[in-house]
């Protein structure tokens, strides 16, 4: 299976890479004085050990080589690879089956301990005043930290729940992006012919999702079976499209966002055939996402706001009278954030994140109004050589949450070391509380070359 998955990854890599490289070769030829391609990269290692039983969760080494080449002042080719080795294989035991990710973007595996991936491969070129970027890339929208409303263009790998940096857990997709200036504003257009979705850990993994809202509803008297996911697979017809208009008006950074996309988390659709079984088939459905962001500074404060409305969310319902145990609703999500810079070399950041299901009906597996609060406190010492920070995420509905203290020290130029902890608390049926037994200490380093 590992070799087969590796083969899929390589085939996908080959198709997209060939198209991107062909595009690169079509760029204007190198002019005199053009610098040769530049290689760089990072090496990162992290050890995570559980508090309760001192059982290690991971001992990971991640190497990310990068290549940049600018054949002309208006064109650039960028590639990033990633090789990841884990001595314990507890985050994704055995060979994972990343069927939610298209073969174009899928990781490859070498045995149980290693995976490899082409993280980015894109060509960027200026055409008139328009910038075109084509290839495998990450698109980041929104103003929120830690929680997402509009930052949903790329799906996410949840192998470490939300503990991994988003930059590492976001799944890059093959995308055509155009950035068009319109007066002082800028219009960004996206076409993403790469139907890939969240990678969720399989049962038995350290961070497998077990909270009720992620499980099929129970049906009294019937045996439950979950079928393989029905993932949209047509590259063109199942692609996502999006647009973002950004402008700066009277001291405010504003954006208007639109994305027509598949929900990255599948809904479990039930089918009862009278054979004593209820079969749940995970399916993805399209939704329109419309929203916007705003941010500005007022004295020592910056204010950030993000709003998103999804037209058609489908979520499991615990309602035996419902035919497929799926409810449809619009959803409104927003984040309001305040960053306070009042203490020198410090940042205190507070966010309120709320998600409202617009339809009221019985059986939702989550509260209609779900509220999360986040608090970040950061202080830099020794001319930013030492950074102390703590992030607290708390869910008001379930009373659960996550606390993440961390100390990072820049040992020497380009080499940082850190020690931290990830502490979950709360009810076992909460999104954070389900990992109450997974509290861990972390120790790591990152070196750039």
């Amino acid at each position, binding site marked *: 299976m590992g070799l087969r998955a590796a083969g899929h990854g390589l085939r996908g890599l080959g198709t997209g890479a060939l198209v991107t490289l062909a595009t690169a070769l079509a760029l204007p030829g190198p002019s005199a004085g053009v610098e040769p391609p530049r290689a*760089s*990269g*990072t090496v990162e290692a992290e050890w995570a050990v559980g508090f309760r039983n001192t059982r290690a969760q991971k001992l990971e080494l991640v190497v990310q080589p990068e290549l940049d080449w*600018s054949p002309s*002042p*208006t064109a*650039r080719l960028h590639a990033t690879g990633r090789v990841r080795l884990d001595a314990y294989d507890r985050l994704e035991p055995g060979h994972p089956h990343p069927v939610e990710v298209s073969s174009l973007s899928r990781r490859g595996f070498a045995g149980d301990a290693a995976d490899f991936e082409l993280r980015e491969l894109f060509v960027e070129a200026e055409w008139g005043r328009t*910038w075109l970027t084509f290839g495998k890339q*990450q698109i*980041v929208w*929104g*103003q929120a*930290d830690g929680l997402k409303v509009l930052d949903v263009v790329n799906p996410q790998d949840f192998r470490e729940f939300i503990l991994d*940096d*988003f*930059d590492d857990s976001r799944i890059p997709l093959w995308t055509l992006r155009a*950035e068009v*200036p319109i007066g002082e504003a*800028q219009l960004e257009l996206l076409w993403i012919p790469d139907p890939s979705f969240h990678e969720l850990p399989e049962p038995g993994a350290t961070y497998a999702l077990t909270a009720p809202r992620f499980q099929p509803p129970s049906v009294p008297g019937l045996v439950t079976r979950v079928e393989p996911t029905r993932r949209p697979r047509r590259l063109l017809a199942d692609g996502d499209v999006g647009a973002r208009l*950004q402008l*700066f008006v009277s*001291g405010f*950074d504003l954006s208007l966002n639109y994305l027509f996309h598949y929900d990255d988390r599948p809904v479990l659709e039930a089918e009862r055939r009278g054979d004593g079984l209820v079969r749940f088939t995970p399916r993805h459905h399209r939704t329109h996402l419309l929203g916007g962001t705003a*941010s*500005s*500074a*007022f*004295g*020592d*404060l*910056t204010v*950030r706001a993000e709003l998103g409305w999804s037209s058609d969310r489908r979520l499991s319902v615990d309602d035996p009278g419902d035919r497929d145990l799926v409810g449809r609703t619009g959803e409104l999500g927003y984040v309001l954030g305040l*960053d306070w*810079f*009042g203490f*020198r*070399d410090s940042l205190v950041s507070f966010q309120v994140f709320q998600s409202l299901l617009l339809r009221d009906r019985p059986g939702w597996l989550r509260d209609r109004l779900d509220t999360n609060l986040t608090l970040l406190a950061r202080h*830099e010492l*020794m*001319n*930013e*050589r030492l950074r102390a920070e703590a992030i607290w995420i708390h869910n008001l509905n379930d009373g659960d949450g996550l606390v993440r203290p961390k100390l990072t020290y*820049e040992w*020497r*130029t*380009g*080499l*940082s070391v850190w020690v931290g902890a990830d502490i979950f608390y709360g009810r076992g049926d909460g999104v954070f509380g389900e990992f109450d037994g997974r509290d861990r200490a972390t120790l790591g380093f*990152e*070196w*750039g*070359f």
Partner: protein
Amino acid sequence: MRSRRLLGTLAAFALLAGAPATAELPAGDEIARRINARDDGESMSRTLEMELIDKRGSKRVRSARVLRRWFGEEKRLAFYYLSPKTVEDTAFLVHDHSEVGREDDQWLYLPALRKVRRIAARDRGKNFLGTDMSYEDMKNETRVTRSDYTWKTLREEACDDTVCLVLEATPLDAEIARAVGYGRITYWIDPAMWIARKVVYDDVALRHKKTALLSEFREVNGIWTVHVLEVRNHQTGHRTVFRSREVDYQTQLDPDRFTERGLRRGLP
């Protein structure tokens, strides 16, 4: 170099000829005006090497590309980290408005988040990205914020191989002092170039805080340019050495470089 020193000395003597009394020196505000009236080019780009050295002598090295352009009375400055790899592509942008009392607009691009973040501009005295210069110092380059201080000429004094005008700047009020982090700044101004050769900063309690020594003045595209700046913080023992190279005042910089999109895109 010798001719410049001679020019400086002559200019100083022209200003001060036969005038040992402080009253005959140019007024402080006039010196500040001349500092800001100095031609520093409409566009400027340079590569900045920075050595951050703590009191034990442990050194960290960074390099960055600094771009600056005037848009009428508004100055825009963009700062792109080139190395080390762990901070590469981090970028800072400031729109320095000329209107008195209007705070600057500032943005920071964090490549780890792939997001441009708006940052508050009131705390102008915060150390700039770990160096011993403040955001205000970096933004001003060799200029001064005239409207924030009262200016007083103290004396003339030999400095390096020339004669400098010693200029004292005192914040207009406690709020400005708190924002910039200084209770008093003393400049040793070379009247041949209207650039400081030495600056001494006292904190809001008037304790000696920092000393900046500027050196290696060379003309680039007809504009006097400081190539080495060493800033020592006497309270922490930390110091930063800035070295400029590849200074260019002739290439007209693309306005797009000074936008949020330019910040995100990074250097070509």
